[in-house]
């Protein structure tokens, strides 16, 4: 079977396993969402039974599972216990917002992280390299929510000037779409900077290590022996080969962000997947959680699949050895 098809088959069976695990995970944990709804209000047993049916919680676990699979194949992610509407719409809106935050932060984190990593790796052992490594380790060890809270305090209470909550100004009237876009852009700054501050270190360190490893290869010696300039050696020969682990890291980073930069979204009330999951946990909105988990795990799998494919483009040895 060709490599591509083999990978597709593995991807599909992994997704099926996850769907199954995901379903049973949420249905065997103790607790009854209907009971929680009923607690707050005086519902009679007939009303409770009706709720159970409308949320698909009636019948045996197995029949609920098959119903879930059939709905999933029709693109139906379920019905929210809390919002009383289809999960697809709720998750769709949140995904859009997370995508915005993700794109902004990934662009900064990956490009700046790689650039600084190459800078440090090509100057191994020098003061500039040591300074970069030490500051990266400090940044990396800072908890994201703590950095977020510091920025909220700095820009919300102390200095002011930048919005610290939400995706746009509450109750604002915009005279054109540009103003609206600018307002969202403003709200995007602090969450993006928070993510960048912490995550950039990850890419700096990975790129640096990969580059140092590549630079010690025999062919780099050959390149030097051929009299190539340092710049050509680093960027043409070293950088491309050092990109393989960085690519894996990028794929994992993007897929992790699909699950929502939970802490950042919660700190800045950014209405994306992270905040949605956080609120779903608080509201015991199982169907929203189920869908969010599913999307996150599928995102990880698909990102890894994409990284595998890209590997073959970047490094023909991968294709040959397979």
């Amino acid at each position: 079977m060709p490599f591509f098809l083999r990978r597709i088959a593995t991807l599909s069976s992994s997704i099926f396993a996850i769907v199954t695990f995901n379903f049973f995970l949420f249905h065997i944990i103790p607790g009854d969402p209907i009971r929680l709804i009923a607690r707050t209000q005086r519902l009679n047993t007939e009303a409770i039974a009706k709720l159970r049916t409308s949320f698909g919680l009636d019948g045996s676990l197995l029949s609920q599972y098959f119903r879930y699979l059939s709905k999933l194949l029709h693109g139906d992610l379920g019905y929210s216990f809390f919002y009383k509407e289809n999960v697809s719409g709720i998750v769709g809106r949140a995904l859009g917002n997370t995508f915005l935050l993700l794109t902004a932060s990934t662009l900064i984190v990956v490009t700046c992280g790689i650039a600084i990593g190459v800078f440090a790796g090509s100057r191994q052992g020098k003061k500039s390299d040591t300074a970069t490594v030490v500051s990266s380790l400090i940044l990396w060890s800072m908890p994201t929510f703590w950095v977020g809270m510091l920025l909220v305090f700095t820009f919300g209470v102390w200095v002011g000037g930048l919005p610290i909550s939400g995706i746009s100004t509450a109750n604002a009237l915009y005279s054109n779409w540009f103003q609206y876009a600018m307002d969202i852009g403003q709200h995007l700054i602090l969450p993006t900077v928070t993510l960048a501050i912490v995550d950039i270190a990850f890419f700096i360190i990975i790129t640096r290590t990969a580059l140092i490893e590549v630079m010690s290869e025999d062919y780099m010696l050959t390149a030097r022996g051929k009299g190539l300039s340092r710049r050509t050696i680093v960027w043409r020969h070293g950088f491309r080969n050092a990109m393989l682990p960085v690519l894996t890291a990028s794929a994992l980073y993007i897929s992790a962000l699909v699950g929502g930069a939970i802490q950042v979204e919660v700190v800045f009330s950014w209405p994306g997947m992270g905040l949605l999951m956080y609120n779903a946990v608080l509201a015991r909105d199982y169907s929203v959680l189920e869908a969010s988990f599913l999307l996150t795990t599928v995102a990880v799998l698909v990102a890894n699949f994409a990284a595998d494919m890209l590997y073959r483009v970047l490094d023909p040895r991968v294709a040959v050895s397979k």
Partner: protein
Amino acid sequence: MVSIESSSNQPEAQHPVFNRRTFLQAALATTAVVGVGSFLTACGVKTQKVVSKLIRVGWKADMDTFNPFTTVTTEGVEIQSMIYDKLLDYGLDLQSEPSLATKSVSAGNTITYTIRDGVTWHDGTPFSVKDIVYTYETIGKNQLGINAQFLADYVSVSAPDDKTVVLTFTRPQAFDPGLVIPIVPAHIWSTKSTDEISKFDNLAPIGTGPFAFGTRKQGQIVTVTRNDKWWGTAPEASGISWAIYSNDDLLAQALKNGEVDITPNVPPTVFDGLKKDSAVTAVELDSFSFHHIGMNVSKVKGSTGNPLMHDRAIRQALGYALDRNQIVQIAYAGHALPAGSILTPNFGDYYYEPKGDAVIDNNPAKANAILDAAGYSAKGSDGIRKTKDGKSLSFRVICTATTSVDVRTAQLFQATAEKVGIKLTLTTVDSDTMASAVYNLENPDWDIFVWGWDSGVNDPSYLLGVPLTSQIGGNNDVFYSNPVYDDLFTKQSAELDHTKRVAIVQEMQKLFYEDCVYLVAVYLKKLQAYNNSGWTGWTNVAGGIIFNFTRDNYLKVKAGK
């Protein structure tokens, strides 16, 4: 193996994926996009205007749905009360006032409403008695949603003419359901089956209320705009917005700097800080909520609760051991009232206040005397009392880990109980586990919990109804069953003479108080705060300026300077 050298010998321009130039170009472009974006956005700080004459509410939780048949959150009910009218409404004095019905007359098993003229739906369709008949019939026949409880004795609804609606019940109704049931438009809803109604998301609700639906951004904000064709006196506010803040400190900050006009639930820790701020008025109001200690008296075979809980003497001793004042001061930092009866003092003359010898609170001597008299005088080496057959008076207590006041209450209760020789072992659980454990009808495996109740209506029926035998499997969280109490409940809910009803309600509370299956620990205080420069004329109401049974504060406030 592929030769590495062969690729490195290629000219630089043939590497399509990465090279220094393309990478630097990409990095430069990214930095430029982000940098220019930041610059532009920094310049655009004040380009958008804020809607004027808007009442801006800031709160912590999202509403669920605009569907009045499926909504369960208080936030949902609050926002819907602006969009949908009811037949009657609560005024600022929490007394009934006309709404879609100009008059309501209870006689025997019927309530007759006289309906207002000249009302239209937000979409321009004329409102009629058919809409009322449809709404009541849908809830009454199908027992749909949270308001079905008020139509438990429903028989029929009819409209003898276009100005009159008659509701018929199996017995007289002391509580008028017209006060709580929002009327929905038949022209939108009547084409749907019961199942479709249960699943209808109602994303663009149409009502007859003073405000029409504006926008909703889930998890962020809901806005409504003034309905200039509303039948009542037009509110000054051009609209209302309810914005969600994820953090109490952010919300307090927004209130101080005027981004938010009012907030309905201030935590005690933030409240004291707001009280000192001159830009803000922070108020502490009585509420219709209490927190209580409940004891498992289930008689089902599968119950693994400690059977000693069935002994009234032990329950009463625990009641006498409990120090409610200490709980108020320590667990609630003074922002609560020591409690007793299942009704809060806000219920006026219905409220039963135990006095003198009738008080079951903070009396360890009496607790010891009761336990001695009941035969639990033997003690182990740890000071814990024993039954005659040698079993320790030892009980498990559960409460929700995230409700810190309940955890603190349980700890204080533990300490006071130990002083009278009763051992309590505390376990904190999450709210889901709590609900599943407590409401496990067949196998309740718990002894004591700490939890709370909030009355959904300004009528004693709701809270008094919690410990009914018929509510086992419903709200009755302690499985209490007392035929005398049940009979009294039935009598009071059909008693139209106020004085006679008060007497029955008082008797019920006394009976339930003395049975000590509930040790109602505290009556909560509602802590709210508003910005002084936004709107003027907020009226303090028991239960809250907003987030209460009455919507009148929204309708009557005036724009500030």
